């Protein structure tokens, strides 16, 4: 399992410390979890849906026989086999569900880098990277970047451990306050700066009242969407936006070589933090799963569909209250009959699932199991691609190569996730591919392609 944390602090210069992880939406089902069905909060609904994955629609009739079994443990073991099959069958869909947001984030970052010059100007450094890279000698520069990296990584480690300790000792209020503060800063301050720079680039004038209105609305809706409830797509869009903003900040304020060394170091750190038994991220995810709580929604991008009331079926009105009944009916054939006729209709039509599935429910079930990707992954992928766009002299070829490399790395990581079924670090493979392709494309492929293009040769 992988977890991503975003620790923001108040001042602009302090970066967000990101950890990355990729978590399968299917956590091991626990029988007592059925009591948690009452909560209708979005995040919990997600984990709840994770638990339900075993009972979801399967065209396999044999498995459906298991679904009608009353004993939960039997159903669970059978459902785990189903889960495996279904996971792998729907694996391609989940990969695409993650490709799209990662691609969008990268597109936003690359577009901004290419058009807004602010993010490629060097205007100072963060206090986390105190050593400057303006030294004449190569060795000194390398040394400075390594020192910068060490400082940055240690800051990240300290923050992660701090967060894990807070989580372990149930200081939820503190964590929530921290997260809210950091997303406030991101949503308001960074957006303000971003908007200002974009307007400057395109020479568009905007008066302060309009600006305040726009930013206030954007930020307020963002806070609600991320920390509370909201349409899934809007929440995903906001998460992509803040990841892109964070990545832009990193690209601007990290010096050249330090950025590359930091990327490499953080993927190694991610590998260790998630896979080692005492790794902070692993402990966090395990604690969260033990307590059957979702990881904070502000830190994780989830591709699973949240149960929205506005489904395109005639008896949607009954969906809200029938959610619990449907779920429990699914699980143990306990029918909490609610008074509305349509509810019983739903419940009855749920019974002959193998022969005649309801389309919308089927869709829902198919889309329910999603994969979660930490926001730090988004950020560091975008940092890599953004840096490639900003600093590579081969321009678009290098950017494109890094983009494809990162996507393939993500694909491989998801494949491993399907095989291993536990949280995995999403950074190492992709970042390794990305770095390899960046340096090789910039130094090897670019001269080749340039020579070919100048003679107009095609290979």
């Amino acid at each position, binding site marked *: 399992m992988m977890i991503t944390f975003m620790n923001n602090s108040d001042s602009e210069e302090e970066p967000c410390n990101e950890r990355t992880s990729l978590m399968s939406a299917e956590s091991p089902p626990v029988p007592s979890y059925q009591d948690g069905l009452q909560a209708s909060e979005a995040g919990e609904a997600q984990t709840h849906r994770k638990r339900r994955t075993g009972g979801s629609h399967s065209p396999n009739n044999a498995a459906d026989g298991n679904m009608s079994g009353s004993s939960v443990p039997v159903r669970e073991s059978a459902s785990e086999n189903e889960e495996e099959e279904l996971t792998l069958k729907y694996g391609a869909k989940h990969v695409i569900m993650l490709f799209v947001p990662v691609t969008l984030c990268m597109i936003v970052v690359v577009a901004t880098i290419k058009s807004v010059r602010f993010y490629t100007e060097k205007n100072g450094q963060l206090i986390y990277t105190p050593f400057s890279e303006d030294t004449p000698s190569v060795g000194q520069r390398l040394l400075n970047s390594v020192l910068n990296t060490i400082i940055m990584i240690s800051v990240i480690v300290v923050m992660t451990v701090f967060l894990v300790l807070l989580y372990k000792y149930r200081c939820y209020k503190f964590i929530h306050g921290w997260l809210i503060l950091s997303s406030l800063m991101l949503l308001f301050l960074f957006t303000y700066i971003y908007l200002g720079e974009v307007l400057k680039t395109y020479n568009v004038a905007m008066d302060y009242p309009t600006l305040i209105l726009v930013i206030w609305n954007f930020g307020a809706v963002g806070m609600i969407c991320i920390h509370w409830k909201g349409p899934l797509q809007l929440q995903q869009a906001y998460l992509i936006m803040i990841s892109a903003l964070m990545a832009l900040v990193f690209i601007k304020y990290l010096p050249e070589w330090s950025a590359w060394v930091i990327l490499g170091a953080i993927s190694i750190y991610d590998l260790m933090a998630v896979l080692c038994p005492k790794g902070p991220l692993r402990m966090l995810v395990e604690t969260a799963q033990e307590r059957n709580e979702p990881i904070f929604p502000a830190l994780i991008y989830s591709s699973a569909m949240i149960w929205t009331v506005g489904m395109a079926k005639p008896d949607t009105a009954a969906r809200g209250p029938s959610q619990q009944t449907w779920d429990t009916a699914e699980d143990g054939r306990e029918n909490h009959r609610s008074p509305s006729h349509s509810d019983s209709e739903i419940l009855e039509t749920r019974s002959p699932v193998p022969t005649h599935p309801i389309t919308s429910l089927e869709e829902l079930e198919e889309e329910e199991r999603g994969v979660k990707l930490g926001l730090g992954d988004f950020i560091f992928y975008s940092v890599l691609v953004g840096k490639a766009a900003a600093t590579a002299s081969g321009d678009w070829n290098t950017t494109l190569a890094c983009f494809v490399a990162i996507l393939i790395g993500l694909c491989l990581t998801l494949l491993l996730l399907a095989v291993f079924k536990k949280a995995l670090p999403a950074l190492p493979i992709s970042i390794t591919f990305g770095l390899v392709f960046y340096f090789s494309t910039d130094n090897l492929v670019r001269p080749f392609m340039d020579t070919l293009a100048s003679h*107009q040769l095609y290979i």
Partner: protein
Amino acid sequence: TIARDPLRIIILIAGAFFWLVSLLLSSLIWFIAVKASDPNDEPLQKGLLIFGVMFSVLLQEAFRFLYYKLLRKAIEGLVALSEDGCSPISIQQMAYVAGVGFGLMSGAFSMINLLADALGPGTVGIYGDSQLYFLTSAFMTMVLIFLHTFWGILFFHGCENRRWWEIAAVVVMHLAVSGSTFCNPLYVGSLVPSYMLMAIAATWAYLLSGGSAQNVRRFLLCKSCSVTGTWYLAGLVPSGLPGRSWVSAGGHRVVSVGG
């Protein structure tokens, strides 16, 4: 035809990745050769460039073969995982998607810097070069993308049925097309043969995918069922199609025929 199905998108991106790796290796070889040689010797540099191009073509085809091997293994895995014993995607569809992947990546790498430069100020051909540079580049890129798609289909078909001459034909065609670009800026020497080769490859791939002259006629005449007509033309409908399906060397049906 590709964006609808997530599996195809993955195969597309993986195809692009394989092309990228082949380009990387070939440019590595070229780079080493150039660094090891005298930079002032013009004919030598030109010769090295030609060698680089040919080597790159051969390497691309080699990677296409490797990708074919990978996709074969993937099909076996998908068949094992699926409930009804048929893979959700057939090898022909994979061939098509792989070809498109190769083509898109090749086209993108050829064209995108050009496009970026075209956005900026400048005059085409100010130093006496051809003024049609952008146009011809665009056409050449387009023909290459199509050709890669068709070569994908032909290549995979040849590998499936163990017809080595098909594979050799693809390699020879690729070499010919790349070689013809050496005639640039004499564009008639490069564009015309390339388009002719593309027409040949197109008809060949179409026939191999199960199309026929009747399908074309039916497609052109059948206006009301144009959607199905398109699929008839493409020959890519895996089930219920009155076309040939590929039978691999072991006599084992590869194409899944559904209801």
